[in-house]
């Protein structure tokens, strides 16, 4: 089928080039826009599919108005209506699989790296290998993207965005607390927070991102553990949560910042997600915002959303600065109505538009400070200049250079059982942070839970 499609594409491409050449030979005027066509003809993204569809659709999670914009552009470029089903990030897997199970047509969808193995196992994801232009895209993938989108040697998706975990601090409060610079060690972080609380600078100097989610609360623990030199599983898949492990000791340290310990952590930490945490931090009540996706700065430093806009700075991890990163992907759904057209739409979301540009990725960088899964975009002005209004781009890219894909400390992300295990992780860790159980009990429960999660995912 893939081979058929590739042949069809080559055929239509030849036809297209022939037509374009003919038009050029006729001396078509620049005013007709043929320069654009000639440019567009340079790649598979501009080839006209032979088949016909009256509409296409995608099922994604919400992010501003990016989807209405890209759908409008697709309709304008190709004359095919695009319908969208958009839900919240946490509800997206449910929405997608219920539509899939109900037998609805879904051309393109989206996944976090944590749901992706389950989607692949359930048969929702169509491999892209052999489709025109895939090899070029794959070559341009960043290392993070490669680790998510290439599964068992097959390309299973195109990147939506990439992010790395960074710290934030409120510069004015730091100055008010008379600290010359942000912390350089974890001990110093605690010292500063305790002092800021004692001096009445902040009732809760630190706000963590510890709300229930796939990468919110877990991401905080993963990043802190990785930075301290620990992992959650080794390369053979054996857990690293036993007594004395870095993950366990990190959790003890983390839990101690909450009410039952030093009481320096904002209790709202347990409810906030990435965006809500950025908005809450923008109220100017905390000195530090715990590690989380770098692009939260575009909320904290947006005058329309934050009273302390411009005063929130990015900060790297202590020690060698090791951090984690992640890439989310778009994929071609196996319930598509027409593969050629679905591939075309997928490229609009996660690749190039008809004009050959990475329109979506570039806009995401410029409008939302998101990183890209393509080297081409990461090395472009879209990032270098696009991120500048919200943060120190150079500093973020420096942190980025020390980031490893989240699958390094947590190789279970490649397994379908990671998701149910994360459900348990959220529960147990929140119980630890609220003092209902100890970090030792939490890790013991999580060790036991690995087998249960594996059984559940079977």
């Amino acid at each position, binding site marked *: 089928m893939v081979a058929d499609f590739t042949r069809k594409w080559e055929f239509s491409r030849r036809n297209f080039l022939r037509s374009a050449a003919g038009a050029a030979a006729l001396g078509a005027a620049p005013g007709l826009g043929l320069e654009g066509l000639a440019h567009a003809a340079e790649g598979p993204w501009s080839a006209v599919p032979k088949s016909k569809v009256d509409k296409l659709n995608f099922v994604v999670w919400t992010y501003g108005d990016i989807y209405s914009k890209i759908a409008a552009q697709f309709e304008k470029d190709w004359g095919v209506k695009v319908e969208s089903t958009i839900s919240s990030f*946490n509800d997206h*897997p*449910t929405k997608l*699989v*219920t539509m*899939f*199970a*109900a*037998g609805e047509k879904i051309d393109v969808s989206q996944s976090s790296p944590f*749901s992706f193995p*389950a*989607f692949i*196992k*359930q*048969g*929702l994801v169509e491999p892209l290998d052999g489709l025109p232009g895939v090899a070029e895209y794959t070559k341009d993938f960043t290392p993070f993207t490669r680790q998510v989108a290439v599964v068992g040697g097959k390309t299973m998706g195109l990147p939506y965005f990439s992010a790395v975990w960074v710290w934030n601090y409120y510069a004015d409060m730091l100055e008010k607390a008379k600290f010359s610079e942000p912390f350089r060690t974890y001990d110093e972080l605690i010292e500063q927070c305790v002092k800021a609380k004692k001096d009445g600078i902040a009732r809760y100097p630190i706000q963590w991102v510890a*709300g*229930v989610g796939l990468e919110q609360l877990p991401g905080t623990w993963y990043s802190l553990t990785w930075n301290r030199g620990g992992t959650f599983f080794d390369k053979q898949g054996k857990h690293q949560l036993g007594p004395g492990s870095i993950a366990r000791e990190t959790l003890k340290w983390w839990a101690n910042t909450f009410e039952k310990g030093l009481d320096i952590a*904002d*209790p*709202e930490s*347990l*409810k906030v997600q990435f965006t809500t945490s950025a908005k*809450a931090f923008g*109220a100017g*009540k905390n000195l530090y915002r715990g590690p989380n996706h770098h692009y939260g700065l575009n909320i904290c430093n947006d005058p329309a959303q934050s009273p302390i806009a411009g005063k929130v700075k990015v900060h790297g991890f202590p020690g060698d600065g090791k951090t984690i990163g992640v890439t989310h992907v778009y994929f071609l759904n196996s*319930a598509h109505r027409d593969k050629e057209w679905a591939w075309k739409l997928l490229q609009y979301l996660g690749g190039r538009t008809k004009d050959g540009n990475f329109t979506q990725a570039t806009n995401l960088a410029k409008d939302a400070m998101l990183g890209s899964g393509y080297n081409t975009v990461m090395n472009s002005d879209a990032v270098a200049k696009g991120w500048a209004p919200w943060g120190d781009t150079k500093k973020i890219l420096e942190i980025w250079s020390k980031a490893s894909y989240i699958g390094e400390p947590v190789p279970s992300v490649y397994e*379908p*059982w990671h*998701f*149910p295990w994360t*459900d348990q992780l*959220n*529960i*147990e860790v*929140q*119980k630890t*942070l*609220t003092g*209902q159980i100890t970090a030792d009990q939490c890790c013991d429960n999580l060790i036991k839970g690995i087998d*249960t999660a594996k*059984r*559940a*995912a079977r």
Partner: protein
Amino acid sequence: MALLMNLPSLAVMALVLAYPIYYAGYLSVHKVGIAEIRRGVFPFYDWQNYARLFEDELFWLSLQNTAIFTFVTVSAEIVLAVAIALLINQSSLWTSRVTRWLILLPYAIPPIANGLIWNFMYNFQFGFLNRILFTAGIIGEPINWAGNPDTALYAVTVPYIWRTLPFAILLIHAALQGIPRELYEAAAVDGATAWHRFRHVTLPLLRPIIAVILILRTSFAFAVFEEILAITQGGPGDATWVAAWYSYKVSFAPPFNIGAGSASAYVLAMIVGALAILYVKLVYRRIA
């Protein structure tokens, strides 16, 4: 002839009630994931879904939380609904007539919106509730209503009661209006106090409607979902995991074990059904 006349309603009931119940039962003894649904082939799984359920501590905790939630909300609703219905039944007071309309407002609010409103109200640092209590000098430090495992479940009961109370008030108020005035007049002639009139006239005559409210509210409270989703999402930890949330998470979060989710929903339905039968027997036996 009677059977013929009843056939349409029987058919509708069978279609909208009996079939889903049967189908959920069918799914609960089969292996049902997304791939199986898509293929339309469900391998027989025996009682494995139930076994998995009963082995899961979280399932039992969810049931326990649901029982607490139901007991608190239904008890509070009955007491408050009777009290408020008695108040608004005073038709001589114009404020009662106004209140009768105002009381219905929360019922018009969609459950998920209600949850979000209360989520803002419960916010630790900026919430309306802490602000009022702090300003009134009732608390010295903000209280983490929805984020503290000791208070979270009770924090969720309040918005739920607030939203569903009007329904109970409406039914009780209607029942109150059906009680003949002569009974009160006779009791007054016999020297009954207001409390005695309430205890020996009003309450016994309200018993059937209270039974109806108990059955309906218990079954709805057992299935509480929206407020949990909007306010706590089961957290902190597992402090607010309830049965419907459990079924939802098992069915619709990876690895999408819809068979086990159906088993969980089925157990829930059995419990609610058993409670409904118990209520009906208890209340009607007393009336008899």
